[in-house]
């Protein structure tokens, strides 16, 4: 999965924000110029912006609504978003809101996205509602890619049920996501797992630290 801009889309609660943060942290190891853009206009909770201070401490640029509107229930897309998608010096991760309702904002950025070296990554957690079968998932892929006005480049298996996740659960997810891949022709980039879990499957593994659980 080689690219300059990584854009995570998916259904509500599929794990886009966790992946965005972890991707940004991983990219930071190879580059001094990493930006994380939070354009989740759907949910005012569990957003990358909640970890802004932590990320900025790691010298990762966090693009979100201005500080004073951080807690506003407002769908503010700051103008810098287009800038960081276009800026060739930056490795950029974009955390998009859930469902097609969240993906629709990509439409307003279409003119920037068209010319950017980017990958749109669809995150799947088969243990979330409306995501448990390959039919449901491919229907969601179709809806979200239409709302975003972009083709989906990769799938990611992020199947988990929180702290109770077993290796069997991850395996179940992997099997379903691979079948989706077969149906849609979209390759699977990796399986993401909690850093405390030991798992080895068919797909590459991306180890993640969970942030959002600390929010409550």
């Amino acid at each position, binding site marked *: 999965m080689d690219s300059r801009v990584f854009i995570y889309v998916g259904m509500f609660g599929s794990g886009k924000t966790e992946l965005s943060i972890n991707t940004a942290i991983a990219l930071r190891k190879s580059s001094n110029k990493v930006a994380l853009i939070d354009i989740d*206009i*759907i949910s005012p909770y569990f957003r990358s912006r909640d970890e802004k201070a932590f990320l900025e401490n790691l010298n990762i640029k966090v693009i979100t*609504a*201005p500080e004073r*509107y951080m807690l*506003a*229930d*407002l*769908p*503010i*897309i*700051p*103008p810098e978003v*287009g800038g960081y998608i276009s800026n060739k010096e930056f490795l950029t991760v974009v955390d998009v809101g859930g469902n*097609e*309702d969240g993906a*629709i*904002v*990509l*439409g*307003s*950025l*279409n*003119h920037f996205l068209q010319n950017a070296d980017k990958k749109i990554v669809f995150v799947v957690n088969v243990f979330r509602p409306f995501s448990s079968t390959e039919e449901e998932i491919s229907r969601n892929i179709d809806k979200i890619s239409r*709302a*975003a*006005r972009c083709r989906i480049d990769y799938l990611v298996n992020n199947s988990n049920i929180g702290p109770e996740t077993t290796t069997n659960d991850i395996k179940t997810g992997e099997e379903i996501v691979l079948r989706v891949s077969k149906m849609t022709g979209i390759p699977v980039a990796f399986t993401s797992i909690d850093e405390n879990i030991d798992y080895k499957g068919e797909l590459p593994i991306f180890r993640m630290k969970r942030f959002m659980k600390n929010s409550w």
Partner: protein
Amino acid sequence: MATVDKIVAQMPKSLSKVEFSYCPGCHHGIVHRIIAEVIDELGIAEKTLMVAPVGCSVFAYNFFDLDGTVAAHGRAPAVATGMKRALPDRIVFTYQGDGDLASIGTAEIVHAANRGENITTIFINNAVYGMTGGQMAPTTLIGQKTTTSPYGREPKANGYPIRMSEMLSTLEGAVYIERTMVTTPQNVIKTKAAIKKAFQAQIKGLGFSMIEVLSTCPTNWGMTPIEAMKWLEENMTKTFPLGVFVDKTKGMI
């Protein structure tokens, strides 16, 4: 040392130094500026009170360097009425979106207009609920998809887009109502003239005035600013034709 011979453009005095919170391509900012310019030109800043709504423009009270408050959702015309009745020689205006004015606050705007309340309303119609994330508005077009009309607005289930300017213009108390847009420089000039006229009607004590400005919401429409502007011109103006719906100010201002 360089000197300034002539200032050709500067920030209107009636705008505060607070940066707008609006998305790129959103028309709130343009309309804010127009209102501020009109207030400056009319020299009424020191006697103007503004009422901001609940909606994307909830912070508008802070973007203007004027006395101001924020009304409960939809109630701005009632709040403005209270202010104007208490201080009849001041200028009072409300700034409201389509959810605020045409849905939850329908009763308040209809009766303020019907009383001929001597206030001015700036009505921003972008056919969608911006603040709460792109839900269907009373002005959403037939067939338009929103997060709460995912299959497109269906008249049988959701009724029709409500034309507030046309409706309010039938009321005796309304003296000036015009619908405009700000998609081109010419349109911006027209909108400014309309807003100026609305304030002048109030200054002359003629009654209720409202300017409806058709606006874009690129973020919730899922369009680039340019596409959104085009969509507004091609689609919104069909349901919401531009024009003056009532003008009882002739020879008065």
